[in-house]
């Protein structure tokens, strides 16, 4: 059950510093949306506001609204913890819990919340999540081994399994392949195609080919200069962004002519 996201007039601040200005966009359910743009233009910042991870940083705040199926995530009675359960996140660097085994890592969302789960349910959830993350065959014989003993690409897929084990509606991925080799990258791209049947997916990437391969829609962010806020320049179907973008800046960026 995927859900759509509507962002309206969003300004994002770190303390007094306006990092991202005036973003409005719609993210369709059961689709892959890619964010591209030069370094420092606020892609990660914007992505983190979609599940209120932004607030974890002291002094960080937002103006405007982010609506999930019409409900404002920043509404007064909305619990950020519940938001993060609904909108999952995968980070740029794989970050499995070093004290936990592979299995415990997958179950982390359940176990850390002190929720009870029967052994058979747990086993089933572990297998389903690991299969969902394309990792099951590689680790099924060593589920009790520490998660940090896996390769970087396997760790990243473990983090994806961990994120989908809490059954979110939306999955945010911040450069999930930037630390991975081409084969692991392909495995994750295939996985994204699988996951989009059930989830709304937003992915940040610096890899134009990747954006073109995996996404249905692409949003291009840009920044006018250092110290200036990042802005959403344009958002459209991926094919349009890469073949006939509406803005000169987008065309320069996707064709690699960007300074």
């Amino acid at each position: 059950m995927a859900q759509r996201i509507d962002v309206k007039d969003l300004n994002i601040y770190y303390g007094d510093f306006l990092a991202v200005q005036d973003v409005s966009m719609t993210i369709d359910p059961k689709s892959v949306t890619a964010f591209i743009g030069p370094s420092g233009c606020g892609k990660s910042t914007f992505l983190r506001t979609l599940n209120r991870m932004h607030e974890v940083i002291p002094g960080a705040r937002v103006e405007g609204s982010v609506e999930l199926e019409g409900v404002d995530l920043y509404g007064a009675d909305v619990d950020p913890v519940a938001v993060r359960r609904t909108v999952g996140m995968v980070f740029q660097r794989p970050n499995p819990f070093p004290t936990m085994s592979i299995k415990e890592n997958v179950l982390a969302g359940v176990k850390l919340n002190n929720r009870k789960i029967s052994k058979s349910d747990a086993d089933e959830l572990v297998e389903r999540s690991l299969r969902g993350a394309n990792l099951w065959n590689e680790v099924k014989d060593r589920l009790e081994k520490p998660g940090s003993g896996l390769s970087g690409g396997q760790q990243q897929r473990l983090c994806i399994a961990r994120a989908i084990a809490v059954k979110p509606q939306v999955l945010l991925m911040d450069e999930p392949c930037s630390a991975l080799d081409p084969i692991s990258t392909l495995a994750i791209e295939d996985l994204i195609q699988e996951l989009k049947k059930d989830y709304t997916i937003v992915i940040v990437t610096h890899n134009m080919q990747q954006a073109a391969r995996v996404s249905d829609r692409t949003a291009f962010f840009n920044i006018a200069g250092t110290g200036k806020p990042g802005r959403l320049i344009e958002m459209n179907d991926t094919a349009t962004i890469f073949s006939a973008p509406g803005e000169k800046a987008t065309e320069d960026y996707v064709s690699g002519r960007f300074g």
Partner: protein
Amino acid sequence: MSTSTAPTLDAVERTRALLVSVDPGRRRIDRIMTVLVYGAFALAMVPLISLLWTVIDSGRVRFTLEFLTSTMRGIYGGIDAGGVYHAMIGTLVITLLAAVISVPVGLLTAIYLVEYGRGPLARAVTFFVDVMTGIPSIVAGLFAFALFTLILGPTGARTGLVGAVALSVLMIPVVVRSCEEMLKLVPNELREASYALGVPKWLTIVRVVLRTSVAGLTTGVLLAVARVIGETAPLVITAGTTDSYNVNPFDGRMMTLPVYIYSQWRQGVVPCREGQADCLADINELRAWAAALLLILIVMGLNLIGRLVTRWFSPKLR
């Protein structure tokens, strides 16, 4: 399918010159530094080895089972008897009590400082922890004594509990400092990973941050224990001295190992009469040395336990 030919002799020579020429100055400095470092290490080891040797050599004379299991009750002069049991129990009880007081306070303070503390309050806490670190131990003893005299009157201020409170004053800043460092070492990425799974902050702290750093926290606590277990001055003032066994820290004086060592040593040589068979002139000194050996063994034992705990809890790679 290499198309390149073998390198010419000339090229080999030039490359060799490039790679082999070592800056002679750097090599010399490397030698000097190596010698310096090893020298400093040896120099630091000399007093340590000498200390251990002296304590073991002098302490083993009276280090018997009887010494470990008897008290000083009814022992006087140069009698070849008496032991350290009451002081050992006193040290264990008071130190444990001090740890029970200091660890929660210190750990919670450290958690506050690392996970929540912002602005003036956190800065004030850090400042006062620094101030506490510098409190002379005798002042901590006087403070605990005065505090309990105020509450319970002069008779209530001489118990093991008062000693434990005095030690806590010394122990808390050490616990805060070392736990703070350990909690700071936990990568932020792990906290974020936990938040992103919809885990509330307090559970993240308990289940991820504390769990990840538990090995370091244990080491920190044990260092703090080792820091106070040998304290003498505050215990002389608070827990006092006694010759008898007392395991209740809430009632009556309690002997401890450092105070035992001090009081035995202070009694000095026993004036034995000529030809008196069961009078040992240096019995007090020997008891002091044996108790010192016991104290060192206890500290080493604690360190060993710390090592084991660290090994059990630290993240494994395979």
